[in-house]
């Protein structure tokens, strides 16, 4: 880390691990960064963070997608998301991609 980066102010949200919001189909969702203890598991799941077609084409990866949604994404009421709930809310594969992108960006 450069000296300039070290001196840059860090947001309270980062230090609290509060996450950031993103919008999908007119609703706001909160995504939290992955904790260290789950990083290895996330990498091992080998999910696509690009096209979500690959994640949704078989049952095994769908379960994994639902697991990460349930662990790190909440809806406006603060309730944990699931893949079924996301589908009920009208998410398309772009929304799912935005969730994974956000999750990766936030997690470092």
């Amino acid at each position, binding site marked *: 880390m450069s000296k300039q*980066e070290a001196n840059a102010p860090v947001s309270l949200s980062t*230090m609290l691990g509060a996450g950031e919001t993103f919008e999908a189909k007119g609703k706001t969702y909160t995504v939290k*960064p992955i904790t260290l203890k789950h990083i290895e598991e996330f990498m091992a799941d080998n999910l696509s963070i690009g096209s979500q077609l690959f994640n949704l084409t078989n049952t095994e990866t769908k379960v994994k997608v639902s697991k990460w949604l349930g662990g790190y994404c909440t809806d406006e009421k603060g309730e944990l998301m699931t893949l079924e709930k996301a589908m009920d809310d009208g998410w398309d594969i772009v929304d799912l991609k935005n969730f994974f992108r956000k999750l990766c960006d936030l997690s470092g």
Partner: protein
Amino acid sequence: MAPADKKDGAEKYSNWEIDELRKECTKRNIKFIEPDNKEELIKLLWQNDHTPDWAEVYTDLLCHTSIPYEEIANRTIPQIDAIRSKLGKNIAIKIGIPGIFGGALDNPPSTSSPTGKPPKLSEFAAFCNAFNSIS
């Protein structure tokens, strides 16, 4: 994904011969499958260069903060990065704290006099007399 030799820090390997790359991979215990190509070996070395040493990260946090070992796993990478980046502002990591684990005060003071000779009786008497005025 950018080609391996265009990635940050990977260009230093671009002029290496394939034998040198193989040797470096072997030295670092990086497994590669024969037959290999230069691009692939550069990619492996680049990945190895960018693999964090988690022991170092944990040691920094354990030695310089009061975060318990188990709690570190509950933190996120940006949080750990932020804490580590500010450590130097408060604690001189490399110098250490005097008197604790290798600081300057841990070295026992020299017992010999500056001249290397034992004190004379007159010097010893002068030292004792210095306390007379206290009582």
